[in-house]
């Protein structure tokens, strides 16, 4: 029937088929989605999951008191919560500072445009990325084993991890600077050191500062859990109360953590927006 009608009478008949590369892309995309979902199903089946009764019992015995604690927090442990959160904060300050100070010289070696070119850049960046690969909590475990428990282990772990993170970002910032002002200082009779102080540093400093603050936000979060492995901060009182299922006290500690992190994030975010 439809074939008999003139072509322009039926819009459907005149729709051109998409070109082959579009069809191939559509098939590939559909295939990808199916693969992702199939993988998820296989994963759920093979994963070692607890029985529903166990989950229900856990929720009833533990989640209910935890939530009740948010409504009626244990104010008696508020002083402990604040003082251990303060320690967490101080740990993050020192860990970030160490990371920033040590990342500074390393990043100039790792940047390909200033010192010695690519000779140092490739090994430099590789080392920085390798450092970054180790989660700080893993480093903290090693430091606790090596030097004993306490905030120093946590600070060292954060410091080392931050060197990797900040060093890589610093190097990227340095590689992105405008070489024009360097040339201007050289043309005015300045040597390498003057070029560095008068052109490179003022160009990179605001971005360095902004990234140090950003790293500080991350480190503060990280520092709240370092205590779980004995590396200082609020994580220690938290894990102790978790082990004894004192959920109302856990809630109090959580409230302090969340409030502190949100306030610091907001402050740091404001400073960062003004910097760049």
């Amino acid at each position, binding site marked *: 029937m439809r074939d008999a009608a003139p072509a322009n009478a039926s819009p459907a008949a005149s729709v051109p088929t998409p070109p082959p590369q579009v069809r191939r892309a559509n098939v590939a995309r559909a295939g990808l989605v199916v693969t*992702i979902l199939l*993988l*998820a199903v296989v*994963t*759920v089946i*093979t*994963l*070692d*999951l*607890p029985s529903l009764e*166990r*989950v229900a019992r*856990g*929720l009833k015995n*533990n*989640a209910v008191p*935890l939530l009740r604690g948010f409504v009626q927090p244990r104010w008696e442990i508020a002083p402990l919560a604040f003082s251990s959160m*303060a*320690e967490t*904060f*101080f*740990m993050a*300050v*020192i860990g970030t*500072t160490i990371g920033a100070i040590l990342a500074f010289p390393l990043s100039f070696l790792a940047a390909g445009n200033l010192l010695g070119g690519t000779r140092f850049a490739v090994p430099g960046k590789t080392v920085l990325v*390798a450092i970054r*690969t180790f*989660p700080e*909590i*893993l480093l903290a*475990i*090693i*430091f606790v*084993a*090596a*030097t004993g428990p306490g*905030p*120093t*282990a946590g*600070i*060292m772990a954060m*410091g080392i991890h931050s060197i990797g993170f900040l060093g890589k970002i610093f190097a990227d910032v340095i590689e992105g600077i405008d070489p024009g002002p360097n040339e201007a200082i050289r043309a005015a009779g300045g040597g390498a050191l003057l070029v560095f102080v008068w052109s490179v540093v003022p160009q990179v400093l605001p971005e360095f500062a902004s990234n140090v603050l950003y790293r500080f936000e991350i480190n503060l*979060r*990280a520092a*709240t*859990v370092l205590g*779980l*492995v004995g590396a200082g901060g609020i*994580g220690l009182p*938290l*894990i102790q109360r*978790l082990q004894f*299922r004192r959920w109302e006290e*856990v809630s109090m500690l*959580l409230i302090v*953590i*969340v409030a502190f*992190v*949100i306030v610091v*994030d907001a402050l740091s975010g404001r400073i960062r927006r003004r910097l760049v």
Partner: protein
Amino acid sequence: MLPEPAATSQIPERPAGQRKVAAATLATFVALFLVSAWQTGFSVGDLATGTGDFFRFFGRMVPDWSYLPKVWGPILETIQIAYLGTLFGTALALPLLFLASANTTTDRVTLAVSRSVLTVLRSIPDLLYAALLAPILAIGPLPGVVALTLFSMAVLAKLGSETVEAADPGPMEAVRATGAGRNRVIVYAVVPQVAATMTSYILYVFEINVRASVIIGLVGAGGIGQDLLARLNFFAYGDVSTIIVVIFVLVLAIDALSVWARSKLI
């Protein structure tokens, strides 16, 4: 001869405010550092001894490769946890991120509530979620998956809503002009604009989740971290080193894979 400058008494002074702000900022940071060092009992000497101890300790950690076959099972579980956490987190974040974007949600109460919830959820690190959920949901991979789901959801919804808010309003207006409601505007005008960026964020969150899933076992939330802690408590440093080397390779491999996938996106 070249002209000499006019009388130096004419040099204008630097505005006082600038110098004060600079001095106050520097003083604040120095004071903050000193107070922190005093409060945590940290000294610069610790830096040297700590590094020394670290490397001495590290030197003893020669990988014991006979442990390697026992690593694969937990490593697979680690990847599975990261995979499911990312997937479920994404599924939950997709509707949420539109609720938290000012240009797709006009109701101010909905916007404020969804944003606040996301801010609170994001302020808790993934390991802390795992530590809280392990006693509730039984030791094993389940609390790990739920922890990473919550964390990924909060991060992706935040990044996603920023992307949506930066989207070009032109196409949205065009679709709205055809008489379409909010959901159609999102599907036809917003999603095509943000899909590529969102996919890249999802891959980024997957990278973070792999790093997180190797450690959440420390608090009983499944994966290789559980074995790491057990071997460490037995002082089996050879086995610990083997696990760390495998973690290192895994994280680098996932990062490389993710970078490759992202390069395919653009």
